[in-house]
């Protein structure tokens, strides 16, 4: 490992902003050559004596429901309540399909004190990915995992294919604006399968939030009757009044502890996702022949970065041009 990389890792572990910012950029870098660097940095991070182990909280909900505002508040509260705790936010905004560019607006809603090392905010564009996360979101989570205690991941919130965030998050928060929908819509949307916690947000707006709250409760009682999984918690929240925020913090943390997934499972899921993105269904069909299940292949290749290169090589031959990690 090069000297500069070592400094970067040390700085990042100490939560200094500049090295952190740069380190995260390495995990966003789509050039094939970046994989080797990423592997070194990742190895150093995961072996670092002062590394942390993050729990991930996925946050989704319709555009404008209040995800960013809420996450900002939660991050501030968590960091204030526990002076050892380090919290990161990774927020994904949609890219323009025309130009590919994006306005990363989530940050605008969140004001974390510039001098506080334990709070970190990073924006990402979704690129042309579906499913609410960006191409590099999982990659960046691989790094944040070792650096923070809690990582919030805010999706684009378009409401489709939210399953990704369910896998990534140890707990998933769905933010509902007042008058989010009626009973049938809640049932139809399949949304009820995603959340560990539902926030009926903007409760300061009074009656409309009450209606949503009651409707949701009724729907949940119905859809969760009988099957063994714990029903999602429903909390009325507002960043205007602070209502429900303490309860929401507590629910999210305890549910994240309870459901905590192994990171290896997440890797396997996103590795498959990467294959699908890079090589389509053809790639996925070839996976069993090349290396068994995603989990087996990852284990055999010695980690995510190597697995990507190995898979590309197996599929495309030695030069393996034209793929990106």
């Amino acid at each position: 490992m090069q000297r500069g990389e070592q400094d970067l890792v040390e700085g990042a572990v100490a939560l200094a902003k500049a090295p952190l910012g740069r380190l995260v950029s390495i995990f966003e870098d789509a050039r094939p050559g970046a994989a080797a660097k990423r592997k070194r940095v990742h190895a150093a991070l995961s072996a670092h004596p002062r590394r942390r182990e993050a729990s991930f909280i996925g946050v989704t909900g319709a555009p404008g429901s209040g995800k960013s505002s809420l996450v900002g508040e939660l991050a501030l509260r968590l960091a204030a309540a526990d002076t050892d705790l380090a919290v990161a936010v990774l927020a994904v905004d949609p890219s323009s399909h025309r130009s590919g560019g994006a306005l990363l607006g989530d940050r605008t809603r969140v004001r974390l004190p510039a001098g506080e090392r334990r709070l970190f905010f990073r924006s990402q564009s979704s690129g042309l990915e579906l499913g609410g996360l960006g191409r590099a979101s999982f990659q960046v989570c691989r790094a944040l995992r070792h650096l923070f205690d809690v990582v919030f991941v805010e999706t684009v919130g378009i409401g489709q294919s939210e399953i990704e965030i369910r896998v990534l998050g140890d707990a998933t928060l769905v933010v509902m604006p007042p008058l989010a929908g009626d009973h049938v819509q809640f049932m139809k949307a399949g949304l009820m399968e995603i959340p560990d916690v539902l926030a009926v947000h903007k409760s300061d707006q009074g009656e409309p939030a009450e209606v949503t709250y009651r409707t949701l409760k009724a729907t949940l009682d119905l859809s969760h009757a009988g099957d063994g999984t714990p029903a999602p918690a429903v909390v009325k929240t507002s960043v205007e009044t602070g209502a429900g925020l303490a309860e929401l913090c507590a629910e999210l943390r305890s549910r994240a502890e309870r459901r905590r997934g192994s990171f290896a499972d997440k890797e396997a899921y996103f590795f498959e996702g990467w294959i699908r993105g890079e090589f389509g269904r053809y790639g996925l069909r070839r996976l069993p022949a090349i290396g068994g299940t995603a989990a087996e292949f990852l284990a055999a290749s010695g980690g995510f970065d190597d697995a990507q290169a190995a898979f590309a090589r197996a599929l495309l031959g030695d030069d393996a041009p034209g793929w990106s990690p």
Partner: protein
Amino acid sequence: MASRVPKPSTQTPHALVSEGGEPERDRPWIFRTYGGHSSAQASNRLFRDNLARGQTGLSIAFDLPTQCGYSSDHPLARPEVGKVGVPVNSLDDLHVLFEDIPLEKMNTSMTINGTSMWLLALYVALARERGEDPAKLRGTTQNDIIKEYLARGTYIFPPDASMRIIAEMYEYCLEHIPKWNASNVCSYHLQEAGATPAQEVAFALSTAIGVLDLIRERGQFSGDSFATCVGRVSFFVNAGIRFIEEMCKMRAFGELWDEIARERYGVDDPELRRFRYGVQVNSLGLTEAQPENNAWRILLEALGVTLSRDARCRALQLPAWNEALSLPRPWDQQWSLRLQQILAHETDLLEYPDLFAGSPVVASKTEAIKAEARAEIERIDDMGGVRAAVASGYMKSALVRSMAERAARIGRGEQTVVGVNAFAEGLPSPLVGGDDGGLFSVDEAAVREGLEGLEATRRRRDPERARAALDRLRRAAERDENMMEASIECALARVTTGEWADALRGVFGEYRAMTGIEGQSLGLRGRRADEVTRRVETLSRRLGRRPRVVVGKPGLDGHSNGAEMIAVAARDTGFDVIYSGIRLTPEEIVHTAVEEGADLIGISVLSGSHLELAEDVMARLEEAQAGDDIPVVFGGIIPEADIASLTRRGVRRVFTPKDYELVQVMDAIAEVLEEREARAT
């Protein structure tokens, strides 16, 4: 009063006659010049000179710290003190500012919003200490907070608290200073932020409705006294270069206001339903290129609000030919004032009844604007009124959209701007040839004097009285009592501007307005745009991800148009963009860029403090060890002579209004990033 207004003659309909049938001219509108700079002393001299030259009212520009509620020695204030207006730190400054100017004889207009109550309190306290009768004070505190959130940016508190302040000022003024306009609903700034005529009318009238509905709800006035309150609402309107349409807009404004006052508020007295308005003509369309052309634009715009007697303004202030270069110098202001004097005194304009009454063209155009505006007013009403439509971001988005459309039209050459996208070749302007380049500069020595004055005030005052006054203010704020008297006591106790605002920040909190840029597009098209998009695409491949740009507005500067257009254009050409709105500190901007791993910082400054802010930004980047990684570019009102200083500080490119072609600006930014890549490899 009303009986002295001449009437159209019945015998000769083209003439105006007095009560007694004698031929008579109308009295001219009030001539105003917007001014103030450096320090209270310097501004006092300026005011007295202007009054001596025949100006008939005062229109005070305050510096940004005073407008945003900071004393001159606050770190946020330092780069901006005295730059764009006069700093007022305490009652002592007001004594100096109005020395030898009789308050009772003045009609004083104050462009003040976030701290409007404080400035009115200071003015009343000044009258009390000088032994003049506060009840006789005449003038206006601008005090329209809605347009601050939407366009102007000098808000402090959240909407509810700010609206309460406005309502309390109406309640106080109606009782104690009956000739004072507690607020002046503004559409001027909306047009400067892109509003179409119908948007201007609708948003301003919705704002007036918001204020009056609140006052009615608070229940201090009823019946006649509420009607009087409706009658006190005055307006501050823009007049753009499409001057026929603008004249029709004024008629639309008047007719709709009459309708609202009658139907919504049940005001019977037509006098109280009159649309009383002052004007500043459009400045957004005044250009940096061939600046002498602006003189003609200003003239034509002035016609729009004076030609038609039925829709004539009550007060007029004009910008100057060098609007896009710097603040006006005294001579520039004089030149604009002369325009008004010639129009009113040399021409026959004031001898006629309305020239357009009965014109089917004007009537139809007016109706069209009214219909569009009425629909918009209803839409805002349906959303829950102006406060809700601000909070949801609707109104801001609508303005940014209009601004983007305007920028796109100019960029494509569909809207002609002479000297800019048409007839751009021309001889060099001798107006910028003088020693000062046609630019105004702030008197630094005077600024220092002002700072010393602030220290002296703090030293001399009775600290106990100041503390007690602030406590009283806080209590009034918490208990929902009218804060005017408590503010006047603060003024008398030599509380400072920063202390007054801080006390209320503690109670109400602070606010951050929407940027309005989400979901916007400039629809940049054509070969050049495609080329730039491809260039960014290539860069993305070289960088391994999309280049990421942080657009930042440091300091107290509220000019957001440029930053908004740049942010939208950057997204349109394939950059990932972070723009968090106005009034950030250099520290916050650099922190954002570092944390986000930005490839470039683009800073926009129009308030004249670019040198100080560049210094600060570059130092902080160094400190964060990102000086080499993250190139910085600047844009805004930046005099030619300062470009070299910026470059010396490490700024890579500097853009000014001449760079109106956004595609080209984006191309230049891509180039800066390519240069960085070349250096790195």
